[in-house]
């Protein structure tokens, strides 16, 4: 009986769950773009908008909601998300792309900071020259900034060919806040010329764990031999931070020069000691290292 009842209930539940998916594009667009509908219904219609069809009329209607500053911000943000989803899942999008990019550029001046930030994020991922210019202008002149400096640096890092290294270096020297400094260092991590700075930061015990780990990753990308040398010295130093030693162990395990490391008896002995007496994080990394080297 119980099985029967369950079986009887299942189709009803399934019908309920499927209801939004069976809504046509036209119905969903009509609901999502109507200011007479309540916000919750509109958000639901936007989240479940079908991406089928080759006519871009529904995309244009949704874009009209995004650019309309008198619409509730929650609806505008959801509409923007719907268009972003459409950018990689809708067959109708290519015909609409040009108007979308143009509208996004206008929206970089929107009064809502979250919408502005998301729009700049989408444009930055497209390596859009307009967005890059605005972000750089804001970093050079905070009065023109559209987003906080740390966010601008993060967005500029999507394009390695952006003109961001000089400004990132300036921010490292004179950071407006610690987060901006961290993001500037992340951005510089792919710059081979920044390796000496990262060597210094990696060895500076007064730096935060995060900054030192960014430095290790930067050296791994541009000067792996240099990282290996520092990693060895850090592991041999009993006064070093646990997390940094764990990072160095991982680097040596994954990327170390197998021959050089295997022949380094001082290092091997030290890591065997770490396997026995260290924090759990370091012990785990030491075990992985020693397993690789057959100890």
């Amino acid at each position, binding site marked *: 009986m119980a099985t029967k009842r369950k079986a009887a209930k299942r189709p009803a539940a399934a019908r309920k769950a499927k209801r939004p998916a069976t809504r046509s594009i036209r119905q969903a667009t009509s609901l999502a773009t109507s200011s007479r509908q309540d916000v919750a219904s509109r958000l639901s219609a936007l989240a479940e908008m079908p991406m089928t069809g080759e006519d871009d009329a529904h995309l244009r209607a949704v874009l009209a909601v995004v650019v309309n500053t008198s619409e509730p911000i929650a609806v505008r943000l959801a509409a923007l998300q719907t268009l972003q989803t459409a950018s990689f899942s809708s067959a109708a999008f290519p015909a609409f792309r*040009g108007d979308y*990019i143009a509208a996004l550029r206008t929206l970089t001046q929107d009064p809502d900071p979250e919408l502005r930030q998301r729009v700049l994020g989408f444009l930055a991922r497209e390596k859009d020259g307009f967005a890059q210019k605005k972000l750089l202008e804001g970093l050079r002149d905070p009065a023109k900034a559209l987003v906080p400096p740390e966010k601008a640096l993060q967005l500029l890092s999507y394009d390695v060919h952006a003109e961001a290294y000089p400004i990132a270096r300036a921010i490292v020297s004179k950071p407006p806040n610690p987060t901006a400094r961290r993001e500037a260092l992340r951005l510089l991590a792919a710059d081979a010329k920044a390796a000496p700075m990262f060597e210094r930061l990696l060895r500076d015990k007064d730096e935060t764990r995060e900054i030192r780990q960014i430095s290790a990753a930067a050296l791994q990308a541009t000067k792996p031999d240099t990282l290996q040398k520092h990693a060895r010295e850090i592991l041999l130093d009993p006064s070093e931070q646990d997390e940094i030693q764990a990072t160095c162990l991982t680097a040596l395990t994954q990327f170390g020069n197998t021959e050089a490391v295997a022949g380094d008896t001082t290092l091997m002995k030290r890591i065997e000691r770490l396997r026995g007496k260290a924090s759990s994080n370091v012990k785990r990394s030491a075990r992985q290292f020693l397993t690789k080297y057959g100890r």
Partner: protein
Amino acid sequence: MGDSTTAGAPSEQQLAALVDTLAADPDRRHELMDLLREDHAFYDQRSTTAISRMRGWILLALARFGLPETALVFVLEELSTGVDAYLVAAAARALRSHPAPAAAFAPFVMRALTNVRNRDEPVSFDSYGDYAARDTGTSAVRELLATLAWLGPHAAGVLSEVEALRTLRGGLFSRTLRLDVDRAVAAIRDADRASVPAADSCCGVSDNIGTSSWVRDSRRDSRSIEQAVFEDHAGAAVSFQEFFRGHASIVVFFYTRCDNPLKCSLTITKLARVQKLLATRGLDDRVHTAAITYDPGFDLPERLRRYGQDRGVRLDAGHRMLRTTDGLEALRRHFNLGVNFIESLVNRHRIEAYILDAEGRVARSFERIAWDEQQLVDHAVQVMNEERDATAAHAPKSGCCHRAVSSAGR
């Protein structure tokens, strides 16, 4: 728009003003071509997007008074491998200012349509550095379709491809663009224009555009670069002299962080095909191949090895991926590399491949326009034969230089 300025360097606005001055002066217009060279100081320490703005403005200036023959290779290069909507749109517009349409232009325009149609966007040519924040009435695709219409019957060779654009699934083109496609198709089919004389027979695109060759005695010697030191994909050190002397070599340039799939990634993939062709002809031991990175600070041996292997490149003692550890400037000078940098990063480069003779001298160069693998191997064989003939004759030929086509980019 604001200006992106690097300390001490001329600003973008200054470049724009210079371009306008040169374009307005018939006696100085030829200087615009010099500004298109990638290694020009104006491009030093600029972002890639800034360089797009700058080069686009130069192409538009050329379009104002008619595209000179010497600038054609730059326009065709952009159509062939460009992925920036603004630059491609400017190149399409510049091509329409060429004195006469030619059938040979049509495949370039069609290729550009394929390359940018999924990244199209409105563009503005109103003022320097302007980005469209609304429908401006034009875009890269619209400019390309207008160029096909300008070509008219000379684009008959690509008519079926243009017609196919109308039936592409997936709403690729908006209603406006579909009308532009219809207009291009009608122009191509226009029987009245079919009789209009064209450049096809006299001054169209030479098969050798972008290719240069030097006879043996006119080649620049390699003394200045012989001591340059490279590290290969396996971490082994080798000097220019050790690797490039004693046999012909095929050399291509690339860098692993290049984000244009039509440039470096394709170049290395094609190098793998060149190696197979050499092997098929039993020449793989007699012709060395090298892929040299523009970005030696980042392209470490492991990165080089993986990049090559992922693209099917054969890697051994005679076929290497290289980075300079000492002598990047000498390398730039020896090859006249078409590249510039922002800090240690490449910000713009052309496609370039070279054939070196047994003395490490540049015997052939293939620049800007994508080279054909078979053509490269054939030229390498020619260079080898020249060496053999010269050795047999024990007498050098008379020393004059000929270049197959304009070498404005060098």
